[in-house]
């Protein structure tokens, strides 16, 4: 049983296309896990959701102009534009933020749908853009994902102190001379880059799970940022691996076709369930320990 499970984790990836898919998902999981911690702490889930939808028309336009190779660059262009727009939006609180974002989200998404509906292979294209095709990832795409990952992680590492200060205490950050607007632009750009990198592997819709779920799982397991960030990174990567293995196992040995992207998300959610159960037990223990200490202080033995 264990041997079967273990071989299921490794055996599929002897195939070159599976090895590339694995590398793509592990890198993406790690990247999204890291950026996701900031999304979680800044409560930017909705902003992120907006980004995933606004990148979609860019993907479509890129594909229409330059085929498969244009997808990345189209997504990159749309991601850059929306990162700037979102930063401006959230810094002018005139319109209710939610309403403005919802409008931006649906409008651009509709532009993408209208554009893609003009093509003959309509449904197949739409499915690919929305849910990704991880099994057809090429070596070149893998390099793109790798470059984006190195870039984003390095940027966040360099800016970790101002980012932490801004996330924890925005007024204090401004008072300390931190340029909050610029930092917000950097974070929005980082989120956009994750979405762009993830477009072909998991599609624009499922990437939000990659960003939110590992970070949320890591948060229930630890109170320390120095632990949460690597843990989220690890959970994201493990989710990618496990999800891909499950989807392969189901297809090859059980004649059950499970879409890789969706399976990865479901595996991540299952991991989140386990993490929050573990987190619950951990907090109960901590609570018990504290109450014991209080009792000891009140009634010295």
């Amino acid at each position, binding site marked *: 049983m264990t041997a079967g499970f273990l071989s299921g984790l490794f055996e599929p990836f002897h195939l070159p296309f599976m090895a590339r898919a694995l590398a793509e998902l592990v890198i993406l999981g790690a990247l999204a896990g890291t950026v996701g911690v900031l999304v979680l*702490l800044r409560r930017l889930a909705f902003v992120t959701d907006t980004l995933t939808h606004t990148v979609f028309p860019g993907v479509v336009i890129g594909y229409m102009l330059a085929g498969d190779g244009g997808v990345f660059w189209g997504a990159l262009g749309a991601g850059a534009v929306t990162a700037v727009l979102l930063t401006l939006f959230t810094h002018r609180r005139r319109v209710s933020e939610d309403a403005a974002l919802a409008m931006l989200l649906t409008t651009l998404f509709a532009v993408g749908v209208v554009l893609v509906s003009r093509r003959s292979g309509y449904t197949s294209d739409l499915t690919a853009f929305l849910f990704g095709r991880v099994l057809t990832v090429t070596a070149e795409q893998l390099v793109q994902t790798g470059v984006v990952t190195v870039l984003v992680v390095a940027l966040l590492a360099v800016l970790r*102190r101002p980012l932490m200060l801004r996330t924890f205490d925005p007024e204090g950050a401004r*008072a*300390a001379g931190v340029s909050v607007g610029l930092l917000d632009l950097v974070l929005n750009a980082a989120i956009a880059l994750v979405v762009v990198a993830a477009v072909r592997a998991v599609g624009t819709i499922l990437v939000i799970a990659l960003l939110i779920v590992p970070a949320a799982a890591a948060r229930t397991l*630890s109170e*320390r940022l120095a632990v949460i960030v690597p843990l989220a990174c690890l959970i994201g990567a493990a989710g990618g691996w496990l999800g891909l293995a499950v989807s392969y196992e189901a297809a090859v040995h059980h004649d059950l076709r499970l879409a890789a992207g969706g399976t990865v998300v479901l595996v991540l959610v299952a991991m989140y369930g386990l993490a929050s159960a573990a987190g619950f037990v951990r907090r109960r223990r901590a609570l018990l320990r504290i109450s014991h200490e209080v009792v000891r202080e009140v009634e010295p033995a």
Partner: protein
Amino acid sequence: MIEETTTGQITTEQPGRTAALVLDRASVAYGDVPALEELDGVVHPGEAVALIGPNGAGKSTLIKALLGLVPVVRGRIEVLGTAPARARRQVAYVPQADTLDPDFPVSVEQVVMMGRYRKIGWLRRPSAADRAEVAAALEQVGLARRARDRFGTLSGGQRQRVLLARAIAARPRLLLLDEPFNGVDAVSQHALLEAMAALKEQGAAVVVSTHDLAIAHLACEEVCLLNKHQYGFGPTESVLTPERLRATYGGQALELRGDRVIVTRT
């Protein structure tokens, strides 16, 4: 930047020459909306001034103006002998603790270390000296034993003390506190007042907004009465009079008991 800071320091080496804070017919506005008009006053190093006035009077706005975050539209504000935005490096701001997310995964020690960020920079690891400053600041507010605990597990008053420790660790020459005594227990209030007194003794000036007139009497040499306009600025004993307070608070109720003045907010 570095030259500016050094020249700033040189001018203040001459004792009694540079005021910590000068307001000279200063008006402050958010865009076209005037927030505070015609402020006048001086605070010297080692002194504390209490900003007193009803909610919405512009106390927080004045603090933001002292940080250079809200523009001075007329007149002049000078902080440590220069423009507010240029003085920021030597000014520490203490926000109200309850505005911060209690779920944030950060330890007490890490919060205080944020006060050292400007000296540490972006990449360098905190040095032994930085750690010593953090420990000393926590000691000063009486929370050395809680250094490793998560910030959000502390009580409101203790969190406020941690934020003051963060400011202390920055070694400021001007300290700005926004309503630090709101909803704070007696123990924490005492600890905050002691730490403020210690900073003043080291030559820092303090600006503190508060509703508590007793604290103004206890801890501040100067008082600034604010409600859009200035209703008085000067030595606490001569400015905190029932007449002036009534004028500042407009229709709001006011009770006077002996030498303690209690403002009941409606």
